[in-house]
């Protein structure tokens, strides 16, 4: 495998969207671009793969120049050696699983067959090699797509929403497998997703994208802990509560929440504000438990939903404003969390961020 960084810079207009990114991914690294749909994420991948030509741009990988609009260089997709995993996997419906993989392999008939079967075997699909895509489950399709993308020994891996087409039950297992593949691969990987949690799980580094720009780039933890803007805070999964702030005692800010309740924050603010707090900062306890911790904020909330996300459980709450907490499966079990239950949400004043709106 050719190992070398993937660098991509582009400026282009796509309808109403001004797309402009400049990024580099190291060999073995995975940059996950996360943003809402329409942010231009897929277009970034398409430019990298050579499926979309930007007005201005430069792309190179492993010492090979792929695109340079100034010098008139624009390698066609087949010459770029990208492994591209499409959003719906784009498996050829008229070819069996192994023939889908063999499509990417060069060489004689027997050699292509052998390599394709070997790859499928590695992805645990040895016995599904002859099945057509329509007879494969979502998880199996994703693995065939991955095997096919890797079959050409690509110099970069591009993944478009690799988990979106899967149902929630398959997703946890598939994301673990994908993480494993991304960890093992020695080439740079660029992944796009609309889900920050997915980006945090799969990427070594996360870039939050909106309206064609990378707003913030860093580790998922850094971005979540210090979001540059309310958009990034909201996107990373922080609950955003609106209310009115006033100065409180001991240099703290007290926010009276719209719809009831009060929150104390160490951030300064006055007037109409948005308070953001991350799900993992929120502790849940049975109502009436008088644990006297350091947490200044204590809200009585109703449980709206309980969703498993990987090894965590995301709990949708109403305070009455929507709020989310993340707890372990064991905690969810002990607290008997289910829709309709009433619990107490506590979080420290230092865990809140105030943004004036």
């Amino acid at each position: 495998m050719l190992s070398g960084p993937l660098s991509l810079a582009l400026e282009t207009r796509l309808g109403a969207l001004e797309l402009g990114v400049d990024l580099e991914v190291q060999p073995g690294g995975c940059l996950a671009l996360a943003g809402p749909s329409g942010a231009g994420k897929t277009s970034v991948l398409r430019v990298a793969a050579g499926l979309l030509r930007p007005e201005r741009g430069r792309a190179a990988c492993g010492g090979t120049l792929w695109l340079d609009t100034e010098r008139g260089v624009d390698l066609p997709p087949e010459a770029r050696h990208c492994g591209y995993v499409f959003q719906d996997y784009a498996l050829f419906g008229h070819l069996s699983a192994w023939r889908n993989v063999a499509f990417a392999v060069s060489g004689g008939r027997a050699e292509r067959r052998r390599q394709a079967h070997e790859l499928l075997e590695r992805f645990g699909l040895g016995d599904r090699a002859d099945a057509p895509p329509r007879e494969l489950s979502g998880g199996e399709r994703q693995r065939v797509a991955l095997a096919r993308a890797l079959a050409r020994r690509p110099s970069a891996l591009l993944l478009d929403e690799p988990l979106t087409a899967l149902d929630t039950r398959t997703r946890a297992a598939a994301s673990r497998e994908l993480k494993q593949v991304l960890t093992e691969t020695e080439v740079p990987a660029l992944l796009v997703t609309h889900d920050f949690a997915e980006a945090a799980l799969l990427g070594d580094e996360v870039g939050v994208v909106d309206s064609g720009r990378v707003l913030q780039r860093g580790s998922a933890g850094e971005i979540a802990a210090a979001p540059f803007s309310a958009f990034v805070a909201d996107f990373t999964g922080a609950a955003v509560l609106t209310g009115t702030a006033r100065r409180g005692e001991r240099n703290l800010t007290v926010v009276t929440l719209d719809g009831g309740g009060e929150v104390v924050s160490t951030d300064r603010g006055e007037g109409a504000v948005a308070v953001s707090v991350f799900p993992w900062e929120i502790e849940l306890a049975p109502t009436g438990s008088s644990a006297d911790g350091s947490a200044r904020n204590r809200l009585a909330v109703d449980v709206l939903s309980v969703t498993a996300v990987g090894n965590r459980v995301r709990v949708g709450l109403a305070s009455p404003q929507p709020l989310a907490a993340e707890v372990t499966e064991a905690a969810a079990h002990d607290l008997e969390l289910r829709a309709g239950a009433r619990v107490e949400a506590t979080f420290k004043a230092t865990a809140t961020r105030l943004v004036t709106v």
Partner: protein
Amino acid sequence: MGRGVRGAPRTRRPGWFAALLALALAVVLAFLGLPILAVFLDTSPGALVESLGQSEARDALLLSLRTTSAALVLILLVGTPAAYLLATRSFRGKAVVVTLVELPLVLPPAVAGIALLASVGPGGVLGPVIGDSLALQTAGVVVALTFVASPFYIRQAQAAFGALDRSWLDAARTLGASEARAFARVAIPAALPGLAAGTALALGRALGEFGATLIFAGSFQGITQTVPLAIYDRFATDFDSALALAAVLVVLATALLLTVKLVGRSSPLAGA
């Protein structure tokens, strides 16, 4: 359909509407089926076979098969890439091009024949170049068949290519296939049922072509007299042999239709 049990149970009304539908279908079946059946019933099988032994009938059959095959090869070779272009690219004036391609569909065959004479006939626009190499020649039959039949194929092929998942073509490219290979290895096999349906339509139209051929190429036995022309030539004088030729066309057309239905229904893996 319309049989859902809604609200309080009540006795079902007499199904006059269902009866009407059934009656309509019965009328259609009788109207379409009877003439076709009659082709085989009106004369004895022995007479059919005997009249096919005549040299005129054999010549007409052979000529029809040859010219139709030649026209079909031309249509497939040129029409398939042209339809692919129309389905996958957008360009200025595309709507005009598409309309132009579809025009022969609605053109009366006699007009098509006259148009061919005016363009590639001896006295036509391209006459100085082409001379009389087409008009009244077997090659002219092929040209006439191609002219009237190709839009049937191209339209269907364009629709079939247009319905392809574009990400398949993109995927083929990222997997190392050139544009030509993506076309040959992904687009064509994946669109095969649609292409087969278009082929059948064009084949049927070419096999039955009459007016344009008659005007442009004439009706000379062994040279330009295809089966439909031969039927017309003798239906007044030798009805039995006209009937025999008609029966052959019915059998051919039926075989064609069945083949297409089978290709369309066969596993998409068959093309692999």
